[in-house]
């Protein structure tokens, strides 16, 4: 792939300022996402997925800050832009579907007004009838009846609200969309129809996606590549079709794979990963996963493993010692 990546993360670390000093939620992350590619990002709650998403959007709030590294979207560093440049660039080139559709819409404004606000903020010359026409078009695209334009968010169901959020996210036809658990709060049926829709729209508008979820099976189905995040690090980045190769992944990835219920089996067994995600303040030495790892050795407790380029993807685990070591993902 020789094209310019839509997203380029280099050695990115994001930390939260706490009384005990900065705590890293995202730890030296490298990633390139190319045009039209869908990349999944999987991890447990608190692994830093959303923090990474907000950092890419330059929307970090409160005490969170980018500690190290660079973020480039379409080759441009968003952190070097002035507030005006940022306001024009963000959403036109890179947008985001928020996790909580319930709260991402302003309760006192109609759906139409919230879509139109997006358009008029970026296209100064747009006339009200043009903006309304585009809002209708967007609702068609996410398959919501146009009559809901005049409604307020509380009059819509959760699934419809999430569709509206998606409509707002693609309103300016960005090159790259971050989807932060877009279906987590929805039931399975609605989840399915929204996912189908995302795929359909993606084929239509051809943007790249970073799809964040803790649902492994969902991500594996949607994405071409999957990044697995543990305690702020990408412990594995792998093509999704290689995920079925058991025994050749990071032990954490395998744990996650085993945790997917197999409904086709005679007896449904779900295996979890023993233990809890580590406290980011007191991260375990060496590989952060070693206290929960079934195959951990003495070495894992001492040294942070390098990234190995294995046939099943890039994996940060001592198990693959002997494979080629790479610096970047």
């Amino acid at each position, binding site marked *: 792939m020789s094209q310019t990546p839509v997203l380029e993360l280099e050695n990115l670390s994001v930390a939260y300022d706490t009384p005990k000093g900065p705590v890293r939620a995202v730890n030296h992350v490298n990633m390139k996402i190319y045009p039209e590619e869908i990349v999944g990002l999987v991890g447990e709650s608190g692994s830093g997925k959303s923090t990474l998403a907000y950092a890419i959007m330059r929307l970090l709030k409160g005490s969170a800050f980018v500690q190290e590294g660079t973020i480039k979207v379409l080759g441009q560093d968003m952190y070097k832009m002035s507030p005006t440049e940022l306001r024009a660039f963000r959403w036109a080139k890179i947008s985001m579907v928020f996790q909580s559709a319930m*709260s991402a819409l302003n*309760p006192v404004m109609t759906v139409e007004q919230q879509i139109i606000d997006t358009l008029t903020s970026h296209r100064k010359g747009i006339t009200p009838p043009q903006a309304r026409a585009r809002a209708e078009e967007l609702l068609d695209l996410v398959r919501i009846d146009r009559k809901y334009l005049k409604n307020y968010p*509380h009059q819509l169901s959760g699934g419809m609200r999430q569709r509206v959020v998606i409509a707002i996210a693609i309103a300016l036809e960005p090159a790259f969309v971050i989807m932060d658990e877009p279906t987590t709060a929805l039931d399975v049926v609605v989840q399915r129809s929204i996912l189908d829709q995302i795929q359909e729209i993606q084929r239509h508008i051809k943007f790249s996606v970073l799809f964040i979820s803790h649902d492994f099976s969902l991500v594996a189905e949607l994405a071409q590549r999957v990044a697995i995040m543990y305690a702020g690090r990408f412990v594995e980045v792998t093509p999704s079709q290689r995920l079925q190769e058991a025994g050749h992944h990071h032990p954490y990835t395998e744990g996650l794979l085993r945790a997917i219920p197999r409904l086709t089996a005679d007896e449904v067994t779900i295996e979890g990963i023993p233990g809890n995600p580590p406290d980011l303040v007191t991260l375990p030495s060496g590989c952060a996963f070693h206290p929960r790892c079934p195959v951990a050795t003495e070495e894992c407790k001492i040294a942070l493993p390098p990234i190995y380029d294995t046939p099943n993807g890039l994996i940060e685990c001592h198990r693959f010692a002997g494979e080629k070591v790479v610096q970047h993902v």
Partner: protein
Amino acid sequence: MRYFLKRLGFLIFSIWAAMTLNFILPRMMPGNPALILFGRFQGKLPPQALKSMELEFGFSHAPMIIQYFQYLGNMVTGNWGISYTYFPLHVTSLIAQYLPWTIGAVGIATVFSAVIGTFLGIWIAWRRNGIMDRVLPIVTMFMQSIPYNWSSFVLLYIFGFSLSWLPMYHSYSANTTIGFNGPFISSVISHGILPVVTIFISGVSGWIIGMRSNMINTLGEDYVTFAEAKGVSPRRLIFSYAARNAMLPQITSIAIVLGSVVGGSILMEQVFSYQGIGFLLNNATSSEDYPLVQGIFLIIAIVTLVLNFVIDMLYSRLDPRVRTGGAN
């Protein structure tokens, strides 16, 4: 529309309830207004006079139920009785004479402190941790914590007595003719400045601090971050997305506070000898002028209820969730 009718029905019911209470309470007290007035003349009046006064005050010995409907009819037609202390003036004309002063001074001060306080709250929440955010809440809180009478005396002493910039009492100067003329208006304004300022500084802090904390909560909401991300201009972000939502609890407070405006600020009107409804109420109470006290209470009740109704309607305009009753 259904919401409107529902609220309107509730309004009429509450006013009726207030009137009924106002009817029952004095009739549980011994004696009648005419007897009290008769007593004042210490036997210098013939008994026939008592009878005529009873008629004048609208007091009858008819059965309660008939009295009640007569009373309701009187209330609706504006015949609220005659004051003893300002005999033979009607209660309604007294209220009509004093109420505008209160609404003018206390009302303006209250609206000013609510509006200015809310805007300051929006501003300092937006510029959080700026100089103003550090200074304003503390300074205004300090001013609010000063007892009202003390701060008004200090202001009176400085601007009224020492500097003689502003008049010290009454709501207008006696040597102007009441009406729409320059001297009268400027006299009203110069008389009003000190009362308005004292009420303003004693109330503005609550609005600033309330709005600031609402605003900070709202600024943390996802929809504000989402709007920021989608590129909405800062001005629209502050007002249409953040403040628009943060303001809703303030509207409720305004309803409560505006209701109390009609009751007047008894303390302010006493300190400045300002001829408002609080001043009138204080006089009426100390001279046991029951019809007047009743009339004032009734007007307070009615105005409070009507204001609540208006605010309810306004609120449902501002928050669409109220109209349909469903929200999540």
